[in-house]
């Protein structure tokens, strides 16, 4: 069951990054250096190439290996950022999360790692503007977990549109970064949707 879920998650995430490569690239061209789409696709292609090795592992080990793969193949800041997210979740997932609260606890470790790695937090027009609201929605314990996570991701993504970037390349643009969605927030929202879809389908 878990192996199948991991295999499906890898396939779906890779497919999603491939399908949105151009969109992420265009978002990044507007406020960054235009490599987010190709970098994410390269990272997930590498994870997919190791799917036979990763899928049978315990969830913790699988997340750590997937994270390390992103760190070593992405080539931009998103490698260590997404890599730290997955690796820290992997370390926290020594016993597999069985419910919403235990999953939120594991996810929380990953989000904290992204904050440390990026020296950032919500409001700086980054992936954290999606990840932090999703975490809060899961911790709040109201509503259907999948539904609230999706909604938090979508609202978080949209919230980046009118933010002023203070981190990363986009911060060089100052006021000109306002009016554009953040590419890292977009890729995070896409991945939240992938996980939500798979959980829903497996129920």
């Amino acid at each position: 069951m878990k192996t199948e879920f991991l295999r499906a998650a890898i396939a779906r995430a890779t497919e999603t990054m491939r399908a949105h490569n151009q969109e992420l690239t265009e978002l990044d061209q507007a406020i960054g250096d235009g490599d987010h789409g190709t970098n994410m696709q390269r990272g997930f292609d590498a994870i997919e190439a190791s799917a036979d090795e990763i899928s049978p592992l315990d969830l913790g080990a699988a997340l750590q290996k997937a994270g390390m793969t992103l760190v070593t193949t992405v080539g931009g800041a998103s490698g260590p950022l997404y890599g730290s997210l997955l690796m820290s979740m992997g370390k926290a997932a020594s016993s597999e999360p069985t419910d919403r609260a235990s999953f939120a606890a594991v996810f929380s470790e990953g989000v904290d790692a992204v904050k440390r790695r990026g020296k950032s937090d919500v409001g700086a027009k980054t992936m954290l503007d999606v990840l932090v609201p999703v975490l809060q929605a899961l911790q709040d314990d109201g509503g259907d977990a999948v539904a609230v996570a999706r909604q938090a991701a979508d609202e978080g993504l949209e919230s980046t549109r009118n933010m002023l970037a203070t981190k990363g390349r986009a911060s060089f643009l100052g006021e000109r970064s306002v009016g554009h969605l953040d590419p890292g927030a977009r890729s995070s929202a896409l991945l939240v949707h992938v996980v939500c879809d798979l959980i829903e389908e497996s129920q």
Partner: protein
Amino acid sequence: MSESVSIVIVSHSPQVARGAADMVREMVGEEVQVAHCGGNPAGGLGTDVMAIKSAIESVYNQKGVAILVDLGGAETNSEMAVEMLPAEMGERVVICNAPIVEGAVMAATEAAGGAPLEAVKATAEEFLS
């Protein structure tokens, strides 16, 4: 012989990294060890955590290593590379918040005089003030 702090230059572009390293060698000479790396794992513009780690290891000595980076991803990937080193090595490696070319030349000049790692970093970062 007395060792000097070594310099590692990390750019998104292999040519920029090499050019900056050439300038350091030209201006400071060979007594400071300089390593450079640039380009993502696929050979395009970007940086590569494992290549940065190898570059650090190639010039590491007890006095330490000062890293100069160009843009955001180079810094994040360098931090990741430093954390992947054995702890006793990683604590002797610092990332300078300085312009890559000027910072590298200033850091190497300071290092050539035998200065400790903290002084090398401070000198590189003087460009900011």
